């Protein structure tokens, strides 16, 4: 953290201009994972084309298993089953299992299922602790009958999936603002349109509506900062409007960032996660700090900022803050003499910097932002168990 005339700002590797936010949203939206789906050989109907019952696809991370059913069904009808079997198959009895026998949940996004499996796979004894997850196909077994209804939600239908999805959107809305007005302010056609965007995997259709309920990554303007202490030529005292109105849609204005921590063997941890920590300091949002490294630009920016009054009180809550709060043994709070962190975070399969601001992450597209924690150095520490943690952000989509 560097100081700037008595004002702290937190450097961030991310810019938060709307264009870059849209870019990141699109990148996350277009993330896919490879799936290899094989029908349980014991359940293949008679006269099936054995040897062909394996289906490969690159599935969007933001989609759901029930939405893949029709595509898989078409394949089985065309290639594997005979007419009789094709006619009598009942997809309402279908269910999926991972290679290791883990039951796959219908209401988890495919990206979450994939990352969960990757984390569990690399936590098995003998797996290399330092290896990054490779993009290997997730091998699923498709069962055609006898779903284990005691461990699976009863209705593996797209309709049930949609309801769960819409419920998560509303919960995220509630977490952010303490009410669900943004969601209820949408017309029914718009709400349905979001789900259609997921079903058809259409970014524009989805975000046309989602942008109305998802916070912006622009900074809030909660008020004026104190007068600058330094007379350095690189600083100018901000002539802030003391009654500055907060940007009510800013990710930095929310009550809580919707975020969950998924432990690989459970449970799911969730608690209130304010976007800004009230610790008495004043901060520049990351948009400013990221661009102000160039001294030629910083002066110009400071000039612009004096009227924009983009400061906000407190320091941004980061992923590191959240993880050390909820998982202090894996993520000890930084400081002199602190123990090393025992895991790292992966978001959508990408290493997430610990200083990533929750507010910014929470405004990304994400039906679920799945941040996976992998153990780092284990040799020096005799860990009885190596925990891997998934941090899922249900930011606006789920």
């Amino acid at each position, binding site marked *: 953290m560097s100081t700037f005339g008595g004002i702290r700002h937190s450097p961030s590797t991310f810019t938060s201009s709307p264009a870059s936010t849209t870019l990141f949203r699109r990148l996350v939206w277009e993330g896919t994972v490879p799936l290899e789906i094989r029908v349980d050989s014991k359940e293949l109907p008679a006269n099936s084309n054995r040897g062909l019952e394996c289906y490969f696809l690159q599935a969007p991370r933001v989609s759901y298993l029930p939405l893949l059913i029709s595509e898989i069904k078409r394949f089985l009808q065309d290639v594997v089953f005979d007419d009789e079997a094709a006619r009598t198959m009942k997809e309402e009895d279908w269910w999926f299992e991972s290679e290791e026998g883990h039951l796959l949940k219908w209401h988890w996004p495919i990206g979450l299922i994939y990352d969960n499996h990757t984390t569990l796979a690399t936590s098995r004894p003998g797996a290399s602790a330092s290896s990054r997850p490779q993009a290997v196909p997730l091998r699923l077994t498709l069962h055609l009958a006898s779903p284990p209804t005691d461990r699976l939600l009863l209705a593996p239908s797209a309709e049930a999936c949609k309801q769960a999805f819409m*419920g998560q959107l509303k919960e995220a809305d509630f977490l952010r603002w303490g009410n669900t007005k943004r969601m209820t302010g949408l017309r029914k056609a718009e709400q349905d349109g979001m789900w259609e965007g997921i079903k058809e995997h259409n970014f524009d259709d989805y975000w046309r509506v989602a942008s109305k309920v998802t916070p912006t990554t622009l900074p809030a303007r909660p008020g004026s900062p104190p007068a600058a202490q330094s007379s350095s030529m690189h600083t100018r005292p901000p002539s802030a409007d003391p009654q500055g109105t907060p940007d009510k849609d800013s990710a930095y204005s929310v009550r809580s960032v919707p975020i969950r921590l998924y432990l690989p063997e459970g449970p799911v941890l*969730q608690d*209130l996660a304010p976007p800004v920590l009230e610790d008495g300091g004043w901060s520049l949002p990351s948009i400013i700090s990221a661009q102000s490294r160039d001294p030629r630009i910083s002066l110009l920016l400071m000039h612009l900022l004096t009227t924009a009054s983009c400061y906000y009180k407190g320091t941004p809550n980061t992923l590191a803050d959240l993880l050390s709060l909820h998982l202090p043994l894996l993520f000890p709070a930084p400081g002199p003499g602190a123990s090393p962190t025992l895991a790292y975070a992966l978001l959508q399969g990408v290493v997430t910097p610990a200083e990533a601001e929750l507010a910014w992450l929470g405004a990304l597209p994400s039906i679920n932002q799945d941040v996976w924690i992998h153990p780092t150095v284990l040799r020096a520490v005799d860990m009885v168990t190596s925990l891997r943690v998934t941090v899922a952000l249900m930011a606006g989509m789920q």
Partner: protein
Amino acid sequence: MSSSSSTLTRVQFEQACKAFIDKHARSPLPSMGATTLEGWSWAEHPTVPGLGYLFRTVPLHGRALAPDKNGDFVQENVLQSAEFVDDPAIADGASPEFLTCEQSIAFSPTFQVPAFYFTIHDSRGSPVGLEEIMNTSLLRHHALPETQTTSFALFQRDALFPLLSQGDHPISGLPSWLIHPCGTACAMSELIGEKMAGGMPEVCSKEWLLVWLETWFLMLGNMVQL
């Protein structure tokens, strides 16, 4: 510390639950006529601290559904008026099915209130569907305003969230039915407000938390036969 009397923090929820158990004697096997406050125990996640919930297991009467002449299962009138008897299995002389209901009271981090989760299994250990749940004595149908059902949820007209739906138990991760807690804070605000007007222990004290949770049970009891 909770910023309002209508919600709790997770820590307050745990304090309230433990005070609740201390006050009300544990009964290992609640009888069919168990009242709201009996038979609850405290359970915690085996490895992660700070994740606890109340739980108990109670027997229920269901009604074994029989197919009509078309082979369809008949759903008897379950959404009736206040005259509807709470124990439908006995009311019309149908042979009762003995069911087991596992109930949990867990903290909802989204709504910052307790939430009621349950599963119902038949004598073979299979989970029962929504239609059969409606046939048990668990839900007080006269307290359920016009509802629509699908196989996976019970909706109130124009409500934001379904009244009853499926979700993962927040601690065990197993699929459960839940009474959606979205309306709890609003209802509690009113009830606690009334109580505080009549005199309550010091806000956020252990005694206050106990009264809060007991009030919540009463509120839940309007909808669910506890």
